[in-house]
């Protein structure tokens, strides 16, 4: 109960947050891979800069939606670990809540006829 209440306070999420959640839903990824996944799933409409991206990651981590895995070394830059992130249970819960909300929205739009071509009037 308290979990759902917590999650509700985080809704609605920003497009970037949503796409990150979706990207990580399929498994842990490192930074650049997340961005690529976000670009793909958003069809290019969500393209954050490095600062915005890590700002969101930082926030999502503090909100307990994602966590960082101890990572292996990046071969391109020895000594610099590739930061890998994965969804937490809370994150998964938020993702489910948000997709459900969006699905309700899509259904309502379809019922209002927004999904078909507009009929000419007068």
């Amino acid at each position, binding site marked *: 109960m308290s979990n759902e209440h917590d999650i509700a*306070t*985080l809704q609605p*999420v*920003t*497009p970037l947050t949503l796409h990150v959640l979706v990207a990580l839903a399929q498994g842990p990824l490192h*930074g*650049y891979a997340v*961005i690529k996944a976000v670009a793909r799933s958003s069809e290019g409409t969500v393209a*954050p*800069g*490095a*600062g*915005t*991206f*890590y*700002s969101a*990651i*930082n*926030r999502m981590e*503090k*909100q307990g939606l994602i966590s960082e895995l101890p990572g292996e070394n*990046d071969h391109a*830059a020895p000594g*610099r670990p590739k*930061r890998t992130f994965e969804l937490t249970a809370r994150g998964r819960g938020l993702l489910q809540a948000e997709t459900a909300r969006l699905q309700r929205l899509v259904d309502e739009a379809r019922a209002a006829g927004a999904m078909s071509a507009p009929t000419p009037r007068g």
Partner: protein
Amino acid sequence: MIRGVPTPFAVLYSALCRLLPRRFRQRWAASMQQLVSERIAALGPHAALSRRLRVLAGESADLVRTAVREHRRGPDTYLPLPDPSRSPSLRVHMFQDLSFDLRFALRSLARRPLFALVVVLIIGLAGGATTAVLTLYESVVLDPVAFPEPERIAYGYGRSGQSNYVSIAPLDYLDYREQSRSFEHLAAVHSFHEDFDLTGDGDPIRLRGRGASHELFDALGVPMAIGREFLPADEAEGTRALIISHDLWLGRFGADPDILDRPITIDGEPTAVIGVLPPGFRWLVPTDVWFPLPFDAERMQVRRFHFLHLVGRLRSDASMDQADAELDAIAARLGTEYPETNDGWSVTLEPMTEAAGGDARPALAALLGAVLAVLLIATTNVATMLLSRSTSRASEIAVRSALGASSGRVARLVLVESLLLATLGAGAAALTAIGLVRWVTSSFATGLPAMPSIEVEPGVLALGVGLTLLAGLAFGLAPTLRLARGDVASALRRARGMVAQDDRARRLLIGAQIALSTALLIGAGLFLRSLWTLESQDPGFRTEGVVAARIELPASRYPFEEGTARQFVARLFERLAASPGIEAVGGTSMLPFRGGNDLYTTRADMAIEEEGSGSSPQFRTAAGDYFETMGIELLAGRDFEPTEGGWPPRVAIVDEQFVRSLFPEADDVLGRRLLLQVGDPIEIEIVGVVSDVMHFGLERGLYRWGSLYVPYSGGGLSVVMRADQTAAAIDALRGSVQQLDALLPISSIETTRDIVRGSADGSRFRAIVVSGFAFVAVLLASVGLYGAMAYWVAERRREVGVRLALGAAPVSIRRLVLRRGLGIVGGGLLAGALIAWVALRAISSLLFGIDSIDPITVAAVTSILAGAAMLACLIPALRAARTDPATALRSD
């Protein structure tokens, strides 16, 4: 560090990362840079640099936005951030942050108003002066000519013997045009202007006109706004056709679209306007109308008369040097074909841009050097001040950090303060620049080429202000970066350690400022001396109490042959001589310093082919008591009789220079006969010799072939009057002319004093400006010295306290400070003198009659600087001597 872009850009991004809150930066900055590297790498190994930089630019902007957001959020809140696209309040937050920083910066500056004021003034003065000189430089030197491809336009003068900038004869021009292969178009223009009266359509006004061949506007690449250019058919005597300037068309004819269909009245005769020039067209001197050169007229058929300059557009495959050589070769051929007239004559070719900006360029270059020196002093001054301030703030910063402010936050506060100072300074600079340019263009109109209309352009202002802002930012960033590095304890430690190396740096900086100030002061001294030498030249005529005005007697109403002009002038002079207050009246065809008009003259007692038989003296007419009015002394013989007017003249008066050049061996030339080479040579007799007169300004000295005067017979006249009340004399002139002929306009009213002073305008301009810069430089250097000494004293409070406690006399403390200050100054003086000595070579062309740095100038400069240094050191010295040992030892 970001890979895939040039290092400076990667460094810039890393530096910007400093704007992030510390914890965020420590956690994520490396990943961010890695992400950016990967993004750039994803563009592909062959991606253009511009693409990579564009990505980096976008990332940098995003970084700054993130920094703001993270600062606003604070380190430990988990609040969801409102979606920027949904909530307008984010922007409000950003502004709240910024406004807090601004208010804080304003408050902290208000606590030290003198510091703020001084910094703003320094930046304003230096930045403004730089912008002003850059504006002048850009308008006059870099871009003086507004024609297409101006570097392909050549301007040609005649050259003979030592005179490089005289004129060309019409027939010679035609030969050049026919035989030369280097030009697309080769045109000729009159080397002097002619004035015309415009009547009808309003008050009569005087127009400035110039003759040109039909190729002129093709050569310049200027199409007519309305109508057409001249055609070869227009170049016949008697053609009454004009091309008028755009300003004249707008101002006088109200932009009449039918201007081509109705004639205007010039000198009483209907004249057709066949073309209107486009707006923005400007000639080397202001010109209202252009008329075609009548190549079939008699005076155009004589190779002895030189009164044209060339304007040519080079062919795309020809260079200026090639064209010059080609014209010289043609001139040589003409010299053998027509030895009596063309032997020794050739052509000087120059790029048009030089003809336009020519005289002013070396002066402006020197000024640019001076202003950059001042800018250097100013920026080092500001740097020192801001550095000192940051050091003294170290403890304030330490306290803030201890109280929880992240060093990033504090650094940002300092940055905002520096930016605020820089912005205020930039505003002051803009105002200064605009004021300076306006002052220069209004006071020194004759010192600068008229061609460009000089205004502070937004582009140059942005550059000057930008330089200033950049300097301000650099000084702001330096202390900021130092502060942002690390924690409280090390900051304090560093503050103490900074003293030693800062000391040396400061001493060097101040020494450099003193050196530059010395050089500028010496320069100022030289320019002032040069001006004084120039102005003490004797032009050969009275400069006090003589006023002149121009009257043009149009041939239509005062036909040459009937002598009506002479009668008018005689009657006019009668009235004027009778007017109270007018002591003497006379007239001449052209005043000294107002142009040239030479006429080839030969000795009647020698054959023309003989060497030394002829010369080209300046040809003038004289009416009334011209010589007496102008204070030109009659050395031998007599003045003209009233009956001797009329054309052709029979008598002439020459000056000593003429005698020296054409009759070097003779004692007495009275009674000698000369031949004026105008078509059929006119024989005249020398009846008088007068003292020399300068014709082309104080700097050019005497014209090498002297002057030849004949009695006035008609045409334009400059009336000269000697009177103690020049205004009353002009009124009398106006009244008399009005009574005799109401349609005659009077123009160009000026005193001989103005004429001579105007000739020195260029020198005066340079002297005043360099002196101004020198003054500012000394002021700035003194302020810098004061700051350095004050700081030095403050740092040594403990040591001074110890000395005083051990029994040292206050006077010894004072001496200590002064000695240190003077030591710095002494070194600077020597270095500055060296700089000046080297620079002297570069500016010697601008100095009149000065070839070395004289001891007086050196002594004056040394005493000025020593005095300023003493003053600057005085207060710190006195304060040091008054230190209370007890408090000094206690505090730290």
